């Protein structure tokens, strides 16, 4: 764990802007854009739960503005509020005035980190471990993944769960153990060659991002994505060693680290060499498309970042652009499928129609709408780990709606949501599959051959 010591305690402190404040340094028009009409309130899950203005988008913006205006110090209570926000960006879909909440929110969290108001030895250790070490180098993540895989495959997990020893553990640890995802038997670099040749006439050359958590828990989705792309005329380049895109870092106020990850990604996959850079994880995609803002003051990367942002495409979005072949199969039975919209696909990237169209194109799929389909499931990055109570309320609300659909499959385009809903459905004893839409399409294509 030598990397841990090299991770500076507060990386964002190094990147303090000229005024000493991320919020004050922002163009004031961004802060001022909110005209507090309140149309965001009914779409904000935390406002809906609590009915408190400070837990609403316009309330949070008023606090950020108070800091920019020197009316409020960065206090612990301000910091807690910024971390109570899910960052689901539903408010951005609702906002007629076009307030860039995502930018405000990331700067506000960076402000919190640079002022160190939440600093405690435990929090610093956890953040250094998770953000500074684990998600900063894919090798570290795979190392941990391998350990968990051993724990799960060796039978130790069943032994421990069966022995009742977990009952002696603190409640929070018990809950976390239950949330531990099943690690895939093989990571993406073991599943995928560097180059996947197109299955029909080559029309595009694309790069595939394998993600970090996605790679550990859903490497099969990466394989499915590569197959779907190849099936539709893309040559797919998948570099075996990929790091985190920096989404987690930016959302958690680690501006400098996020900038470093962005530069690494651009170096690994120079955007001028590809027709598109494909991601299948909504949370990553939403961040990957905003490197311009992160690197705008870096003369060596600013132009590349702009090109990068243009090239990054969510897999559903890209299939919408290039078109996809309808699988030529005639299934004997129909399956009821419902679709949960990942926040960072629906609100972060405004991709709502394409996943539904893809699902509807699969023979045998009967798509039934999920009530409140674009309401956060509570996963929200690491929110379900740091705010378990609120996350669970949202999960239960989601599952209540899922049950009304009577669907046997729930499809969603983000690993966080997949895992959250998977865990929730298992706890409730729901007999249903939770799948990525692209996996369903890939499966249909595979049946074609047979």
């Amino acid at each position, binding site marked *: 764990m030598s990397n841990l010591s090299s991770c500076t305690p507060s990386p964002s402190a190094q990147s303090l802007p000229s005024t000493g404040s991320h919020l004050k340094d922002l163009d004031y028009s961004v802060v001022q854009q909110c*005209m*507090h009409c309140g149309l965001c309130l009914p779409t904000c899950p935390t406002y809906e739960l609590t*009915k408190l203005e400070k837990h609403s988008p316009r309330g949070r913006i*008023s606090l950020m503005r108070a800091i920019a205006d020197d009316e409020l110090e960065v206090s612990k209570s301000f910091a807690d509020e910024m971390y109570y926000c899910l960052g689901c960006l539903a408010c951005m879909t609702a*906002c007629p005035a076009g307030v860039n909440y995502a930018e405000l929110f990331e700067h506000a969290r960076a402000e919190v980190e640079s002022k160190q108001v939440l600093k405690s030895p435990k929090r610093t250790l956890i953040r250094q471990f998770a953000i500074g070490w684990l998600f900063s180098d894919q090798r570290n993540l795979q190392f941990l993944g391998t350990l968990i895989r051993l724990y799960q495959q060796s039978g130790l997990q069943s032994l421990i769960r069966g022995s009742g020893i977990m009952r002696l553990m603190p409640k929070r640890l018990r809950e976390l153990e239950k949330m531990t995802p099943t690690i895939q038997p093989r990571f993406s670099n073991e599943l995928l060659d560097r180059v996947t040749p197109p299955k029909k006439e080559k029309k595009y050359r694309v790069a595939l991002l394998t993600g970090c958590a996605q790679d550990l828990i859903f490497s099969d989705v990466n394989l499915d994505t590569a197959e779907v792309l190849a099936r539709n005329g893309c040559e797919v380049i998948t570099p075996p060693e990929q790091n985190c895109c920096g989404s987690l870092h930016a959302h958690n106020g680690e501006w400098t680290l996020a900038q470093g990850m962005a530069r690494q990604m651009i170096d690994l996959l120079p955007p001028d060499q590809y027709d598109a850079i494909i991601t299948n994880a909504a949370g990553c995609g939403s961040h990957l498309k905003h490197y311009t803002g992160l690197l705008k003051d870096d003369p060596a990367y600013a132009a590349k970042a702009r090109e990068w942002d243009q090239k990054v495409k969510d897999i559903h979005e890209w299939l919408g652009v290039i078109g996809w072949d309808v699988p030529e199969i005639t299934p004997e039975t129909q399956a009821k499928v419902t679709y949960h919209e990942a926040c960072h696909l629906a609100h972060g990237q405004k991709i709502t129609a394409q996943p539904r169209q893809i699902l509807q194109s699969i023979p045998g799929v009967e798509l039934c709408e999920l009530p409140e389909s674009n309401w956060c499931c509570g996963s929200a990055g690491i929110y379900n780990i740091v705010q378990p109570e609120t996350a669970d309320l949202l999960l239960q609300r989601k599952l209540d709606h899922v049950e009304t659909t009577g669907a046997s499959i729930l499809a969603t385009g983000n690993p966080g949501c997949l895992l959250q809903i998977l865990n929730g459905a298992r706890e409730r004893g729901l007999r249903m599959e939770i799948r990525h839409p692209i996996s369903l399409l890939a499966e249909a294509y595979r049946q074609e051959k047979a």
Partner: protein
Amino acid sequence: MMQLDKSIITRLREIVGEKEVLDRKEDLIPYSFDGTAALKQYPGCVVFTRTTEQVSRVLKLANQENIPVVTRGSGTGLSGGSLPSDQCIVLCTVKMNQILELDAANLTLLTEVGVTTLTVSEAVDKAGLFYPPDPGSMKISTIGGNVAENSGGLRGLKYGVTRNYVMGMEVVLPDGEICWMGNKCVKDVAGYSLKDIFIGSEGTLGVITKVLLRLIPKPQAKKTMVATFEQMDRAAEAVSAIIAAQIIPCTLEFLDRTTIHCVEDFAKIGLPLDCDALLLIETDGHPSVVTEEAEKMEAICRENGCKEIRVAKDDAEATKLASARRTAFSALARLSPTTILEDATVPRSELGHMIRYVASTAEKYKLRVGTFGHMGDGNLHPTFLTDERNKEEMHRIEEAFEEIFKEAIRVGGTITGEHGIGVAKKRFLPDFAGQAQMRVLREVRKALDPKGILNPGKIFDPS
């Protein structure tokens, strides 16, 4: 300046519970404004009540201790009606959010005041009934706020405003006494119609805690159309001609070029962009009447130089169009950080004149303006686009509005059609109302709230 004593906070907590009183700075900042631009004032504390009994006890305490109380729903008002006063108690009603009874036999709905307008509308719709008032903020505005401000909406032309749907209410008077007024009877002339004084009283006379709403049968059919015009004048003439032809459609809304572009930029529903004015027209009722009215209006629009007319293909598209129209005010903020809107209203025969007057006044003061509104009921929303830090421009806006209001009054109009006086239009009220009316307004307020604790400084100053 009065300081809100810690002991008051303690006593308030005894009434509503520890967590239902907010007094930390980080909690108060988000309650220092409502939906009105460029107004800000911190309250002393925020109190959430859940029962009428709690409201009564809070008011008793406030009255005893001479503490101002500002009632607030979702804080979407557009005249500063729920803007706190210094060191006041903000009494927030959003947790009083239960619908109590839908009486299908009498066509009424009894509800607590913190329920949103949309929730009321949906609950009623499920029962096959209709509650027409639909203010722009209906997704989040509370029914209590609607009653206190006498809100209007897109359907005002045919169906009237909130006042026309209130049959009764429960009010807590400033001294804490609880009072029921009105009932389920269609006819009732027993004594003064007191509920009518509370409708539109902007939180100055009492705290409304329950309302009894009148419902009507749901129209069987509706048809929604969008008509575009090269010039705003021609759109106004088309509207006058529709009214003159004795057609009262449900909705007759307009957007000018600036507003159309902002709304389309946000909603992306394919509004036509190459026109100076757009009319959103909706007729509802019996299917044969709907067809006939729609045909007549289409003809009138064409006679008045309409460029293009498009009919919504289904209910979903009609809803999208109306929802997009409701975002007009907020969407204008895409162009500038501060949007100052008014709602001067004129008799419909004066519409064309008033629209030209607004445009020439904007030009005279070198201001950017986006205008939209309820053309069918003469209710305009000229919105000046500015930056509140530009003091000089803000001053010019003040001057421009003063002229617009004077002209509205001169042609027999009003300074506010549906947003209320609040603080934003307070200084224009005496000119509009005249001495005698001002005296009566003051005396009514004094009779009900002798200590002046409820929403002080709103509508008019004591004197």
